[in-house]
């Protein structure tokens, strides 16, 4: 049996575990009715306006940088594993690689992508 089947089992059983907990709770918990019970909680007063609104996301640029650098790591890890067996040429290549990305990072910094808008 392959390792990955084991992983699949973990995934499935974990989901079942979660679902089981919720369902068991559903069976035994008491329930009641009240007028305002199902309304959104907002410190006890009725919520004003729509909730699923356009959200001013100052986080967007962070996410962008994250994706870019996350992709970078998928190149870095194979290199890191081979680091000891590869020659210094590979190290220099990687330095160039990183340097190019660091330029990007520096640019992002300079442009204030890391500032909170």
């Amino acid at each position, binding site marked *: 049996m392959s390792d*990955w*089947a084991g992983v*699949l089992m973990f995934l499935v059983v974990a989901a079942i575990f979660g679902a089981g907990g919720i369902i068991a709770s559903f069976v035994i918990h008491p329930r009641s009715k009240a007028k305002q019970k199902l309304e959104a909680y907002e410190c006890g007063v009725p919520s004003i306006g729509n909730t*699923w609104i*356009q*959200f*001013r*996301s100052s*986080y*967007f*640029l962070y*996410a*962008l*940088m*994250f*994706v*870019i650098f*996350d*992709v*970078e790591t*998928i*190149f870095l*890890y*194979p*290199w*890191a*594993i*081979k680091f000891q*067996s*590869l020659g210094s040429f*590979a190290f220099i*290549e*990687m330095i*160039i*690689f*990183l340097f*190019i*990305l660091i*330029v*990007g990072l520096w*640019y*992002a910094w300079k*442009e*204030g*992508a890391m*500032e909170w*808008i």
Partner: protein
Amino acid sequence: METCIYNVIAFYMLAAVILGSAVMIVAVRNIVHSVLFLAACFISMAGIYLLLDAVYLAIIQVLIYAGAVCIMIIFGIMLIRRADMKESNLFNKQTKLAAGVVAMTLAVYGILAGKTAWTDVTSNVPVPADSLDKIGGLLLSQYVIPFEVAALLLTVALIGAIMLAREVKADGDN
């Protein structure tokens, strides 16, 4: 040539999940659901990669696509206004036309794929075990130019995206 029955079952199940969620991505009306189906699709695709013995690819599929790209799309969604979240992912007017075009492409593709005698080129050489090691070696020797170009591409994308989005910030002060 896959012989193990479990692999066959796994393939069909994964394919079903992938195609099912792909259809849902297109079909659902709520863009957030769309993204979540996208994530499901990506994760099961990682399963397909595992069947194909591409372990590293499977992992980065989850890491990059489900973990990063989906999240960025979510950010994008949150930034853009819509009247109602529940009606945020509708079809446009050319749906029928699109369906026609797609049906034709699919037909052509299917015919071509069916005609080609893939089996001829299939070899049974097992994939070497430590694929990650190999990939690292290859990237830094044989594919070193694309490797550096990838870095360049990423940087350019980063700079470009920031430049596009920068105006967001520049105007942000007023």
